[in-house]
């Protein structure tokens, strides 16, 4: 089934963007967020757009549909889609194109589906609206596409509601929906960022497959290099709304030219300095989790979890979402009292419920959260956020608080004079996470639980946070429990690794043991699902698995 190539038969350029400028409104002034970008996309080609958040990659992606978000405007340049000027075209004309010839797959499929309608009804909506097919045809087509995207039970899955399928399935159903009119161009906006590695690879594979099958052109937006290496024929690196570098995937991966691109490539090379005192035998664990079983209501979530945390060392807890990683943290902090088993702190059992713990016991174990946005109170200034543990636990007066807060800000590499009086909304994502770290440090703990602390951040910023945590660990001899689903992070920061699946520990040991063969089955699957920078990686892996 070929795409409709009626009015551009002898021209294989599908989308052409020249000198595009887009302004965004901030503080009641226009700021340029896309600064004169050129882009050419041929039929059937997949172009990867990559960059940090704020690089303008999403703005550029949706601009291809002739659309800008509210609060933005086109201020220059041209967008030509198959001979149609997308900036000048009337809204009706653009609407006729959207869905029919240009489709969009968003990051959060869950937020993009209407929860009140069945998947297949939403699939059929656009073909019916554009009178491309009748209901029976649309439904038959949906089932066909669901099958092609390897969704389980393709004949019936469409009759489920969005909440009745998993995240990975929903993302594939969304791709099927985007395919419903066989568009010429699909824009994928970080479609797998919210998924687990093991799910991500299935989704990526089917997406790549279907795009190839229908010879659809695609723009693939992501911040993950390894993912884009699998998907794209050509890669554009963006930064601050400008093009940094553009090249075919293989050339780009083998030989990046610009310093910025090289730094992106090098991010994954960070390795923690190994702990100096590896003599675990002679010192007592700071925290020892012993045979913990925990339940929500009557349902056991954790089954007999045991592991130890030592001073100056990092234990990474890895697993897919729902594997019980965060629940383990909740048991240690006492938010979820364990049903069976105990948590020992320096050999002494901690009360199971945090409300029964003493101030000092609470102080010893601090927590850093995934979403720094929600982890600090937006109505408090930095001085109050960091100062509170100081006065609360250590009984400091206002002057001592101020001094110590400044010291802490220095430690997390933020200039005290600039930041001490700010509100959280005046900070970037990475800076907020640094404030969370400072707040944890203020309590002078011996152990910090880091719950996916870098997964909401850009790679460069995340690396900065990892380096900071590593430095602090060496300086202060802290124990970290590092919860993550990102194996690159695990490799970077851990001493010991605990692999979890469905509330059980499937493997644990030192990092070197875990990351060298032989692997248990699940660890193998987890490790092999992590995208590699090699563009042939996915093809080879799938050939191996099937």
């Amino acid at each position, binding site marked *: 089934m070929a795409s409709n190539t009626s009015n551009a038969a002898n021209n294989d350029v599908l989308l052409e963007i020249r000198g595009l400028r887009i302004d965004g409104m901030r503080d009641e002034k226009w700021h340029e967020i896309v600064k004169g970008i050129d882009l050419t996309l041929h039929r059937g080609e997949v172009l990867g757009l990559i960059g940090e958040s704020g690089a303008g990659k999403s703005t550029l992606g949706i601009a291809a549909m002739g659309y800008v978000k509210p*609060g933005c405007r086109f201020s220059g340049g041209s967008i030509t889609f198959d001979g149609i000027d997308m900036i000048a075209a009337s809204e009706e004309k653009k609407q006729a194109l959207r869905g029919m010839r240009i489709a969009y797959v968003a990051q959060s499929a869950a937020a993009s589906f209407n929860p009140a309608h069945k998947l297949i009804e939403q699939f059929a909506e656009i073909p019916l609206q554009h009178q491309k097919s009748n209901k029976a045809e649309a439904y038959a087509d949906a089932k066909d596409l669901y099958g092609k995207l390897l969704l389980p039970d393709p004949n019936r899955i469409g009759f489920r509601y969005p909440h009745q399928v998993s995240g990975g399935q929903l993302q594939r159903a969304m791709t099927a929906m985007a395919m419903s009119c066989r568009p010429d161009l699909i824009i994928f906006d970080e479609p797998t960022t919210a998924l687990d590695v093991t799910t991500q690879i299935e989704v990526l594979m089917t997406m790549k497959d279907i795009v190839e099958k229908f010879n659809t052109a695609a723009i693939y937006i992501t911040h993950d290099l390894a993912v884009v290496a699998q998907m794209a024929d050509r890669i554009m690196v963006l930064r601050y709304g400008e093009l940094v570098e553009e090249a075919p995937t293989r050339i780009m991966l083998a030989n990046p030219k610009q*310093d910025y691109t090289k*730094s992106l490539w*090098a*991010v994954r*090379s*960070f*390795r923690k*300095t*190994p702990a100096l005192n590896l003599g675990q035998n002679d010192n007592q664990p700071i925290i020892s989790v012993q045979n913990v079983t925990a339940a929500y209501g009557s349902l056991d979530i954790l089954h007999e979890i045991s592991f130890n945390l030592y001073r100056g060392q990092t234990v990474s807890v890895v697993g897919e979402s729902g594997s019980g990683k965060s629940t383990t943290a909740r048991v240690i*902090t*006492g*938010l979820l009292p364990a049903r069976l088993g105990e948590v020992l702190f320096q050999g002494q059992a901690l009360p199971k419920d*945090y409300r029964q*713990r003493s*101030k000092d016991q*609470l102080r010893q174990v601090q*927590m850093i*959260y995934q*979403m720094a946005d*929600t*982890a*600090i*109170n*937006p*109505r*408090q200034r930095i001085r109050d956020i960091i100062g*509170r*543990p100081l006065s*609360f*636990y250590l009984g400091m007066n206002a002057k001592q608080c101020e001094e110590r807060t400044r010291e802490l800000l220095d430690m997390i*590499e*933020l*200039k005290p004079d*600039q930041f001490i*009086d*700010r509100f959280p*909304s*005046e900070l*970037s994502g*990475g*800076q907020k996470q*640094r404030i969370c770290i400072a*707040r944890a440090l203020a*309590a002078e703990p011996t152990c910090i639980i880091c719950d996916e602390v870098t997964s909401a951040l850009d790679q*460069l*910023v995340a*690396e*900065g946070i990892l*380096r900071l945590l590593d430095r602090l660990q060496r300086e202060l001899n802290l124990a970290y429990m590092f919860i993550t689903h990102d194996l690159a992070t695990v490799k970077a920061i851990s001493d010991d690794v605990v692999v979890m699946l469905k509330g059980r520990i499937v493997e644990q040991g030192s990092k070197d043991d875990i990351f060298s063969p032989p692997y248990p089955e699940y660890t193998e699957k987890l490790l092999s699902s992590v995208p590699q920078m090699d563009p042939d990686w996915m093809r080879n892996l799938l050939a191996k698995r099937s």
Partner: protein
Amino acid sequence: MNTNISPKVQPLDASQIPAARPSKFKLALRELWRAPLSAKFGILVVCGYIFIAIFAPWLTHYGESEIVGGPFEEWGKKFLLGTDNLGRDMFTRLLYGARNTIGIAFVTTCLAFLIGGISGILAAILGGWPDQIMSRVVDILMAIPSLIFSLLLLTIFGTSIPVLVIIIAVLDSTRVFRLARAVSLNVVVMDYVEAARLRGEGLAWITLREVLPNIMPPLVAEFGLRFCFVFLTIAALSFLGLGIQPPTADWGSMVRDNATLISYGDITPLLPAGAIALLTVGVNFIVDWFLHKTSGLKDGQ
């Protein structure tokens, strides 16, 4: 051991954020200047009312309940808006009415917010059975039509001003409770509240420092609306004879006392009613603007 080959990561883009921050006062003035006409009108009206309420004794040379002439005298030089059914100066009573009605309504609304706001936030923080008990009590109170309920309570406890204030405040706090609980529920699930709990903070800190500042905008908007409703309730109760008692000047009872004049084509009894209406409209204009501002901020960021 890998030496760090990547360039120094520099997340501290301090230059992007302006260092100097305009003072709060200046910001407020700028906001006020940009406010829509309706909001400016509302602010003007409310300021006028407050001015009258405070300076009532200096704006007229008659006493609040002093009988200065015959009943129902005409508008004129001596009595600007004539006199009422007992021969008291209408204009004077209108001014004092602002003082009494607005003052009592304000105190009542504050009390309602104190009761309803704190219990609502506590219900959201504590959850479980304390939440159940408080919510069900509120449901029961709300199930009884509030005007009839307050009439009943006023008949039981008598009609002094403190009783009036407490009864209306308690009945009105149910609405505040519901709002405060609903918006707090969105805040108590935030990680920073969990962090405060894990730090070992007490209930007072979590309520006042973590939750309350984050639910202020809807509460302030609700305060304006509640104030209008309380104000109308008091006027209605006074009209029915169970509110503010004579000889204290009050707009509700002034309408009732002079209602007979309407049949003779005299609009004097409509003046206190108009005063009530104007204030209600003014307050609502301000609340609309405020709601628009705070919700607009959410959309923009």
